[in-house]
Each structure stands twice: as structure tokens, then as C-alpha cells.
């Protein structure tokens, strides 16, 4: 059988870096081929080559057995390869239908210059129907009213409309909660059944094992293995192939000691976002916050940090009531918030590593509004060493890997000497090795007596890391349990509490 797309012996060099050396890969019709590897393994480069965004220095690309060269992304699309990037290509001001037909707008009239809205809506509707989502997404709706998961569906519909036989998905589930991810996988199942060739890139290895027919592992730009998914008995085997060494333990032991209550919130509410949220965190404790995307978890945490307004309720720190008006005041009270999106909210990508580290504690490196670069560098280096930061502190934050970027964000708050640390999705989009290190850092912070809150959409992470988990759904706390009672099914049930009855527990991309 001829592969829909085959890459042969692909190599790609960037100034000073060999991103790929001699990687081969083929995608077959009716198959999901997963691509896994740590950050920096070459996955993104491979996707860029496949999508026509970068040209290889060596090697061949074959489409249906014929050699082709992609000069630009539109070349790749013309050859039937549709790529859905992590950063979605959605035009915010347009409707769902307009986004689906983007670039291939149906036209009518003399010279085919008049855009046909009704035809576009019909085409978008058909594409959504073939994905089994005709009821969930209205082609006429504004695309801004959609969730991230639904926007992804819009992009998949766009690929279908172009009859792209090959669909490349770059970490499509990174921003989705478990249930949204599951619904997406079901859609991929369906596409596979219809004969699409799918390249699926993900850090979520359980998902990969669930969806893929074959799995290719990259490490350091090299092709390590391509194996049938059925041949992988345990997820750990994949991790070991990815990191090239046995993984001892992903999670640190649970820290034992717990002190008195550091942070307590009572009856927090903001109209339309969350209501009646109460919980407390003790010194040395790691509190997990579970829930679906949109359950109000991030909103609550940002309100505690005074990054967003709060309508009702009180926040007590060490027994004293806080009236915070800005993040600056929250920081002065010892509260730190690590945002879910490090590139958008956590880092200044143009600044060097050590400046990002020092950003929340600049007043400590000199008096009278001055900054001593010597003291700043020393502190930054010290904390970077403690966090096992393995990038270049002198380099701008934009050029270092995701795991190291996350360490910069964590280090920033370690330097600020906060004693309540709120982590929002701390391991999103970083590789397994870096995840283990982030877990260890969170563990160490708890061991030092800090009160830690971890918001996460990855249940295994919460279950293995936390002392206690609260579950939010529909803007309210639905359940709370101690480590002894952790049960993924109970957590999921609570996470769906506000949705049950809406339309059963079936397919849900909403």
C-alpha cells in the first residue's frame, strides 16, 4: 500500500542546532500515527516541514508515492495536508461558517466574486454533521462564543471541507479537559473510519496509546522507534524510549507534615463566573483543584490574586482579612499566582532569563529604585541552580524550552518569598522529564512549609501530588476529599455535577 504521505531521511539544521537528522515516517490512509518525544526532540520541526512552513536540508517528501517539494504552507495544503496547530488559526471576528470556509469561500455571480453566505453556512453545517456535531455548533454563531475545544473542531471541519486526506494535529488536547479530549478522540476515530491519515502529536501518553495505530518516538532529532500501539504494554515503556533512560518515579512521595491554616477563603463569588467558593490551605499542604475547563477554577484563583475583581466573600491570610486591590498588593501579602499560560501571562519573552526570574522581586536588588545587576544575577543564578534550570539565563526567554520556561516562572515566585503559591496548570505542554522536576519543586515548596494550590486538568497529577482535592463544576465547589479517599471516578462525577441533565453524559464538546 502506498502511504498517503511519507517522509524519507529528513534532516533539518537551524543556526547552531541540528533539529532533525535522518527521520523517516509514513502516514497511511485510515490510520492514526502518533508522534511522541520530549520538548526539543524535533516534533515541532517535523510538523513545520510537513506543513510546508520549513524546508528540510536533506531528505524527500512523498505524497501518494510522488516526490514533492513544499515551498510554502499553501503548497502543503494543495497536496492535501491540513495542519492544526496548537495556536489555532481562527479569525475571531467571523462566524463559525466563515471560519470553516476560510480560504475557500463559496462564491457566485459573474466572475465568481460574490461571497455566498448561505452556501458557506450549508457547507460548514455539512462538515460539522460529518463530525457528528451538527447539533453542538451552530454555523451562524460567532466563533468567539466557542470554547477552545469547539474552535479546534472548526479547524478540523475546515480540513474536511478541503477534502484533506492527511490531517496533522499538534497537541490538540493540551488545552482541553479530560472529557473534551475524550470527545475529540472519538471524532478522530470517526475520521479514521472515513479513511483519513492522521498524524497525532501529544504529550498525553495514555491518550496516544488509546488512539494511535502506530507510534513513532523521536529523541534529540533522531528517529528512535516506530512501533504498533498494540505492542506497547505500559505507558512507562514509551516514557523510557522518549527520555532514553528508565524513569524512576514520576511523582515525589507525599510530604508528611502539615501546619496551621495559612489561607482561607469564604463565600467567594463573582456574578456569572463563580459562587459561594470556600476552602482553606494549610502550611505544607498541597491542595488540588479539579474540574473541567470553564468550571471557574482559574477565575477563582485570579480573583484571590486580585488580578480580576471579586464581588463577594472574604480572603483570610494567617487569620487576617485581606482587602486586595491589585496583584502588587497580593504579592506584598505573600500570595503568588503562576498563570496557566506561561507565554501569554507568565513570562516577558523578550527579556533574559534572569530578568524574568527577578521580575517580582526587583526591590530586593538595590535601594532607592535602583537595580544592582550583580545582585540580581547572583540571586537568579542561585535559584536557577536550585530549580535545575538547564537553559541559558542570558538568552531571551522565548528561545528556551517549555520546561525551562516553566522553571523561570516558578523561580520568579520562589524569589518573591511568597508563602501561598497558586499553580494554574503547572505542567501544561511540557515534557515528561520536566514534569517530574516540576512535581519535585512543588513538593519541595510544600516541605518548606508553603501552602500550595494546584489547579490541573490532569487527574493523575492531582491524585498523586495533593493532600486534598476540591472539585469545581459550574462555578461552585462540588466535592472535597482527602488523599485516602481519592477516586478518579468520584472526581469526574463531581466535575460533571453542573452538566448532568443537560444532555446526558454522552459526547460533549461544549
Amino acid at each position, binding site marked *: 500500500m502506498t502511504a498517503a504521505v511519507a517522509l524519507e531521511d529528513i534532516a533539518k539544521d537551524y*543556526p547552531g542546532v541540528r533539529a532533525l537528522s535522518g527521520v523517516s515516517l509514513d502516514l497511511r490512509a485510515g490510520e492514526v500515527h502518533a508522534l511522541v518525544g520530549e520538548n526539543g526532540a524535533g516534533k515541532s520541526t517535523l510538523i513545520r516541514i510537513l506543513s510546508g512552513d520549513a524546508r528540510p536540508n536533506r531528505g524527500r517528501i512523498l505524497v501518494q508515492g510522488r516526490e514533492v517539494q513544499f515551498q510554502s504552507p499553501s503548497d502543503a495544503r494543495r497536496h492535501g495536508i491540513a495542519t492544526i496547530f496548537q495556536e489555532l488559526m481562527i479569525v475571531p471576528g467571523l462566524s463559525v461558517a466563515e471560519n470553516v470556509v476560510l480560504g475557500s469561500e463559496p462564491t457566485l455571480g459573474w466572475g465568481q466574486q460574490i461571497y455566498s453566505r448561505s452556501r458557506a453556512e450549508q457547507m460548514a453545517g455539512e462538515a460539522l454533521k460529518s463530525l457528528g456535531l451538527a447539533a453542538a455548533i451552530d454555523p451562524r454563531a460567532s466563533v468567539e462564543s466557542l470554547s477552545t475545544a469547539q474552535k479546534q473542531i472548526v479547524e478540523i471541519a475546515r480540513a474536511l471541507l478541503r477534502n484533506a486526506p492527511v490531517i496533522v494535529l499538534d497537541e490538540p488536547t493540551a488545552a482541553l479537559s479530560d472529557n473534551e479530549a475524550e470527545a475529540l478522540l472519538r471524532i478522530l476515530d470517526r475520521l479514521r473510519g472515513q479513511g483519513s491519515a492522521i498524524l497525532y502529536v501529544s504529550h498525553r501518553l495514555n491518550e496516544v496509546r488509546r488512539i494511535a495505530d502506530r507510534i513513532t518516538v523521536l529523541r534529540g532529532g533522531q528517529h528512535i522507534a516506530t512501533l504498533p500501539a498494540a505492542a506497547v504494554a505500559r505507558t512507562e515503556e514509551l516514557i523510557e524510549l522518549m527520555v532514553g533512560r528508565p524513569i524512576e518515579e514520576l511523582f515525589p512521595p507525599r510530604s508528611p507534615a502539615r501546619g496551621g491554616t495559612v489561607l482561607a477563603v469564604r463565600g467567594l463569588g463573582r456574578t456569572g463566573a463563580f459562587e459561594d467558593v470556600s476552602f482553606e490551605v494549610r502550611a505544607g499542604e498541597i491542595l488540588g483543584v479539579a474540574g473541567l475547563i470553564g468550571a471557574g477554577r482559574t477565575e477563582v484563583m485570579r480573583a484571590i490574586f486580585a488580578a480580576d475583581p471579586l464581588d463577594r466573600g472574604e480572603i483570610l491570610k494567617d487569620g487576617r482579612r485581606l482587602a486586595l486591590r491589585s496583584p502588587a498588593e497580593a504579592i506584598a501579602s505573600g500570595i503568588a499566582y503562576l*498563570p496557566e499560560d506561561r507565554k*501569554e501571562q507568565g513570562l516577558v519573552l*523578550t527579556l533574559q532569563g534572569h530578568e524574568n526570574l527577578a*521580575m*517580582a522581586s*526587583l526591590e530586593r536588588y538595590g535601594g532607592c529604585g535602583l*537595580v544592582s545587576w550583580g545582585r540580581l544575577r547572583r540571586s537568579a543564578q542561585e535559584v536557577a541552580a536550585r530549580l535545575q534550570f538547564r537553559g541559558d539565563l542570558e538568552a531571551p526567554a522565548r528561545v528556551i524550552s517549555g520546561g525551562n520556561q516553566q522553571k523561570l516562572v516558578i523561580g520568579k515566585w520562589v524569589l518573591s518569598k511568597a508563602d501561598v503559591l497558586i499553580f494554574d496548570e503547572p505542567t501544561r505542554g511540557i515534557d515528561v522529564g520536566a514534569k517530574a522536576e516540576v512535581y519535585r519543586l512543588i513538593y519541595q515548596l510544600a516541605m518548606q512549609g508553603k501552602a500550595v494550590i494546584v489547579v490541573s486538568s490532569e487527574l493523575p497529577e492531582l491524585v498523586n501530588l495533593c493532600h486534598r482535592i476540591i472539585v469545581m463544576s459550574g462555578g461552585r465547589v462540588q466535592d472535597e476529599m482527602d488523599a485516602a479517599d481519592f477516586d478518579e471516578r468520584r472526581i469526574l462525577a463531581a466535575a460533571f455535577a453542573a452538566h448532568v441533565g443537560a444532555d446526558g453524559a454522552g459526547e460533549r464538546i461544549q
Partner: protein
Amino acid sequence: MSEVRPAGGGIERAGAALGRRSRWRDLLRRNARDIGLPVAVVALIVLFAATSPVFATAQNFRNIGVAAAALAAVSFGQTFTILTAGLDLSVGSTVALVSVISAFGMRSHGVAAGMAEGLLAGAAVGLLNGIVITRLRVFPFIATLAMLSIMSGLALNLSSGVAVSGIPGEFGDLAYQVVAGLPVPVALALLVLVVSHFILRYTRLGRHIYAVGGNEEAARLSGIRIDGVKLAAYVICGFCAAVGSIILTARVASGQPTLGTSLPLESVAAVVLGGVSLFGGRGSVVGVAFGVAFVSILSNGLNLLNVSSYTQLMVIGGALIVAVALDQAIVRRRTGE
């Protein structure tokens, strides 16, 4: 063949030399943006020195310096606003307003008091810009474009549209006096450069300006008071424009309500040529100094070649487009195609 193999470290030495050369290339490629402008300035000097006999004389360089001083002061101030991802188009009429106010001030209260009043007025315009931008949430482009009109009208009203004369002669002489071997305007511009560089690099405010311009949301979540930082940037910009205005006012020895109309474009051009990103958070005043040098030398050289000032306008606009296009090309190449 096997005996030809060089002894011991030969291969390693060759390898090291190769490594060094590629490291140089790497360094060059990585810093192409920073190196490009100084190279262009030197090329310009060589070009004009070859085509005009007058160009490479001490007197002409002094002329360039005096002519460049006001633009330099204004551009260093502009750098602050552009680093916060903002912009100040009102510098043109700020210069005019300060010229009129300081001329009146000097006439009635003496040179020092008049200068102080002018500087205060410049800072006040900056403060007003900052308030409109941070409190009323008007985009910097619109806010300062409107302020350009408002302050121009104010300057014309105050002066009834004519030059304010009667400034003490000692003030006009300032423009031609020399301190430490430098014409006073050049010394002033250098002072602004040094202070600006110090503020941007070694103070908390300076680092906050880079953080706010680089990623406003991350800066806010790191506890930086965004509005205060922006306000400070516009006040500094207004103050620097006032310094530029005093230099120009001394040169024309009267308060001019139409002074500085070309400064909004020229200052933005110098800042952008100097490698400061219009998206904020990247660049330095040292780069901007080269940007100012480029614009001023270009204009001086064209003068010597008898190119009319009308044509010069076209050349400077064109140079701005070429420079930004080159910059974009370099950025694209560095990020891989």
C-alpha cells in the same frame, strides 16, 4: 596516505579554528540587528566624505552635532514610550508649546526660571498624555495624535501665532558656547542619553518599562503597577521633548509656536532605525543614538550635495521603510525562513 596524518593536536587545532570562525559567523548573524545600523552610519560617513570635500571637517561634524542634538533629546524620550509598546506623536507640538512658554518665562523671570517653566510644561504634557492613556483608556496613537493638535493650538493661542521675541541674548548664545570641548546642545543631548540609559538599565522603573512593553499581562501578574510605569514613560518623554525644545529655542533665539513639526516622524524614525521594537520591550537608547546619527548625517550630507529639503523629506521617509523592511528580513531569517 596514512603517514600524512598530522601529529597530535593538528586536527583539533584546525577544528578549533573552524569552530571559532563559525562561532564568529553565528555571533554576527545573531547580532545582525545591532551591528547593522552602526555599519550603515559608517558607510554613510564614508560615502559623503568621498563625494563632498566639506563633509569630513571638524566644523561640519560640529554642525551635525548641534543640528542633531534636539532630535536626539526628543528621540531618547520617545524611546521610553515606544518601549512600553506605546507612542508619543505629540512631541512635535510639545516642542512648540515649550518654546513659547519658556520664551515668555525668560522674558519676565530670567533665563533659569524660564527654562524651568518650559521643562515643567513639557513634563505636564507628558503627564496629561499618560492620564488620557491609562485612565481614559485611549490608545496611545489616538491620544497623542489628539494631543499634538491640542498643544499646537495652545502654543499658537498663547503666542497669537507669531514668534515670541525679547529673549535675553545670553540664552541664545548658549547654542554656540562650548563646555568640555563640546557645543552646549551636544553636551545636553549626551547628558539626556546617559541619564536615559541609566534609568532604563539600572533602575526598577527602567526594568519595569521593558517588562510592561514585553508582556503587559505577565508584568501585571508579577505585581508591577502598569499604569504608573506608563505614566512615568510619558512624563519622561514630555520632559525630554522640552529639553529638545530648549535646544531649538536657543538656536533660533525666540519662542516659535511652529517649531518641531517634523519631530514626530523623525523621532519615531530614529527610534525604530535604532532597533527599538514598535511592539515594545526591546531596544536601547544607545541604538537610538545611532538612529539619530543616521538621520542627521543623511540630512547633512544631502544638504552638502545640494539636495533640496523637499527631496530630503522623501529620502528620510524612504530610508525608514527600507530600514524596517531589512529588519523584518533579518528577524525572519533568524527564526528560520
